[in-house]
């Protein structure tokens, strides 16, 4: 079992405006562990540093200080080792309309990660693997989708392709950056169930970044709440939702609409009339 560890990770961005430089503390101090049998939800408002953490884990950004380790090995920042490391951590992006290259076929998107890791020997073998992956994300019949281009697919189908691409290099950690927020409401559950099933079957550690507390509770084992670059609360999902300790978590919970409360109020009013 593998573990991704973040140890006092900090990220500052320097903004240059003429001679004046301002520093933005995107992530102040993040420490957590993501074992490969768990899903951790990362919630927080926009600009709280959720995506910066995702970008640091996927090596798109380098931490200003602190260390990120996978199975005790520090994550490389450049050079040949970085390319070798890449396949361990994969990411599903928020917008399925932007995350697939309009120029390339679905086959290209899924086969490239396979080819980069030399997971097959011939074109036929690659085709077979791509079909397997498409079937795993429930895009059937897979052969029908393989040589299509992204614009011929719906949002939900595209997101499934993106998930298949992320699974192709057999990662140890999967980061899902608001994977359903751009999808039609009726498709969200299906995609989330798929992600959760894959996480359990493949023993992938999943970091589920979201705004949505309800799905965070439903699909993850632990919840981390971020506020202004700090992880303010971290605990088992039910504890965080039912017994929030921090003021900010309470505010966040209160901000989510609760149909029960709403209808209780409506019923009370009706009774009064």
């Amino acid at each position, binding site marked *: 079992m593998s573990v991704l560890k973040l140890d006092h990770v900090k990220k500052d961005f320097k903004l240059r405006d003429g001679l004046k430089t301002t520093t933005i503390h995107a992530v102040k101090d993040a420490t957590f562990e993501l074992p490969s049998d768990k899903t951790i939800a990362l919630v927080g408002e926009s600009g709280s540093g959720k995506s910066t953490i995702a970008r640091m884990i*996927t*090596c*798109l950004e380098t931490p200003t200080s602190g260390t990120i380790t996978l199975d005790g090995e520090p994550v490389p920042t450049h050079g040949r080792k970085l*390319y070798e490391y*890449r*396949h361990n*951590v*994969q*990411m599903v*992006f*928020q*917008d399925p*309309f*932007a*995350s*697939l*290259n*309009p*120029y*390339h*076929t679905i086959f290209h998107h899924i086969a*490239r*990660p396979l080819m*980069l*890791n030399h997971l097959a020997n011939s074109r036929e073998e690659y085709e077979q693997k791509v079909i397997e992956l498409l079937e795993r994300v429930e895009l059937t*019949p897979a*052969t*029908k989708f*393989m*040589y299509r*281009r992204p*614009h*011929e697919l719906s949002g939900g189908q595209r997101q499934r392709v*993106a998930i298949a*691409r992320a699974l*192709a*290099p057999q990662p140890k950690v999967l980061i899902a950056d608001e994977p359903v927020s751009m999808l039609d409401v009726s498709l969200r559950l299906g995609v989330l169930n798929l992600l959760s099933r894959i996480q359990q079957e493949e023993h992938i550690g999943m970091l589920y970044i979201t705004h949505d507390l309800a799905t965070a509770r439903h699909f993850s084992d632990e919840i981390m709440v971020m506020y202004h670059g700090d992880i303010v609360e971290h605990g088992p999902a039910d504890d965080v939702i039912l017994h929030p300790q921090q003021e900010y978590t309470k505010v966040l919970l209160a901000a989510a609409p609760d149909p029960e409360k709403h209808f209780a109020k409506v019923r009370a009013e009706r009774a009064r009339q």
Partner: protein
Amino acid sequence: MSETNTATSAAKTVVPKRRHPIWDSVKRVLPERSPKLIVGLTIVGLMVLFAIVVPIFTKDPNKINDIGLSAPSAQHWLGTTQSGQDVFTQLGYSVRGSLTIGFSVGIIATAMSFIFGVLGTYIGGIWDDLFSLITNIMLVIPGLPLTIVIAALMPSKGTMMLVIVISITAWAGSARVLRAQTLSMRGRDYVLAAKIAGERPWRVITVEILPNLLPVIGSQFVFAVIMAILSESSLSFIGLGSTSSYSLGTMLFYAQNGSALNTGAWWWFLPPGLMIAIIGAGLSFINFSIDEVINPRLRKTSSKKNKGKKKR
């Protein structure tokens, strides 16, 4: 009836054939077949044909005759120059010279704008700063005066020299356009996804970014060709062009020196002038049709086949 029904439902479940990957990719970057494209390609095609065929079937354009400044006749289709050279023959060689210079500059200028516009921007950091600084400097220097100065300083006056001189001043504008496009593309999710998958930078540029830039690059290329033919004509007309070979500009230069305008020898100065205009128009038509790929709003009617392209 029932038989046809089962036949169609069976046809639906049949696995579609793998499309031809290379031809399919090529087709996607080609502009839609519109009247503008056909007109443009026809004009440019005829010009290229003219430039290839005429010099084969005619004699030496420098050959001097004793029938100076004669009007068009059966023997000399476009008359003769002051020293009795055949204008039609000269025109063939000139179109060839101008097109050669135009396309050479187009290739060199496009390659330079790719290096300065795309590579620099993608690498980012100090290289981006440096490359865009150079681009901006080249952009604010007025092109024609700089070309004149460089051309006047150049030791030899051959076609190669002209190509280099014009290329130096022709790439900056399109580098700017490509830089803007690359900046927006560099941060797109599919580029990040390719990076996360472990693609090397050169592959991200050539396979993920370049195909989406091809329409822009194509249009910049065509524009550079037009630019080159026009600036070569201007340079040659003021006497800074190549002295050893023919181009439409040198023809106009000789016509001006031979006072064709004063003596009413229209057959001498009109054909090269018209040729410049026609080549320019043909290339512009091609450019318009490429523009329709880049900006679908310019398209009057869109066929069903290309609907998906709009989202780009």
